[in-house]
């Protein structure tokens, strides 16, 4: 139910953002389409804690700035590698110690969003990653991002290093 309300609120915000009008006719049309969308989402069963993770909003405030910092740093690393050489493609497998699929998806997407690493497969709590050079791969081998995502999801953080291969 929380998720449905959050979805409706997000859709309402989107509507206001795109229209910017406050005429009665337009507002009624807007409310009707929002209700229709929420109903369809409910019928499709996508309105759950995976499809609309509102519970991550507050922890996300800590996670996203860190992720943006990572993205900036690895952008510069990869840009240097493209311009001045140093490209050494490699494949590695890292442990995803999150307890559920949502956490692993967040982790895999964070890996892909960071330039220099692309997650190419998620299987049995391990993520196969293609990295373009040593610098970006080493960042994953230490398992720092893994633990950050665990913290975001509220999972217990394991202290052991998480790299394999």
């Amino acid at each position: 139910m929380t998720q449905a309300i959050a979805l409706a609120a997000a859709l309402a915000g989107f509507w206001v953002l795109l229209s910017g009008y406050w005429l009665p006719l337009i507002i009624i049309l807007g409310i009707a389409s929002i209700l229709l969308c929420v109903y369809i989402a409910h019928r499709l069963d996508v309105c759950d804690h995976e499809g609309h993770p509102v519970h991550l909003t507050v922890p996300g405030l800590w996670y996203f700035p860190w992720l943006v910092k990572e993205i900036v740093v690895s952008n510069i690393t990869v840009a240097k590698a493209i311009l001045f050489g140093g490209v050494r493609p490699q494949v590695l497998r890292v442990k995803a110690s999150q307890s559920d699929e949502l956490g692993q998806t967040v982790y895999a997407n964070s890996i892909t969003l960071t330039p220099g690493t692309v997650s190419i497969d998620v299987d049995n709590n391990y993520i196969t990653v293609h990295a373009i050079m040593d610098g970006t791969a080493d960042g994953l081998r230490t398992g720092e991002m893994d633990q950050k995502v665990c913290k975001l999801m509220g999972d217990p953080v394991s202290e052991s290093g998480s790299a394999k291969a």
Partner: protein
Amino acid sequence: MAAALDIISWIFIVGGIAFCLIGGYGLIKLKDVYARLHAASLIDTLGVGLILVGLMFQAGLTLVTAKLALILVFIFFTSPTATHALARAAINHDVLPEVDTEDEREMVRSTKTPSEAAK
């Protein structure tokens, strides 16, 4: 104040353009499709991000800034999914990344989905 905002916004936009161009150069220069994925993600993250933030500084606190932020959020959430889907599609069709060791090649092969591997 306005001049300072202007300068900041131009620094962002020029930075974004620089990352776009480097990413585009990487698309041409790098050796295989997996390496090029990284060049493309240069464009998708900082290239787009810096340009949009620069435009936000130009627009000030208006509806336009909110829309730019919305585009930024969309691209940030969708681009990793698209990249991952592309990598998966390539691997399932036996386009394997150029890597140094046989170990790594085996690791890639083992990620193929069962139905495709059986064919």
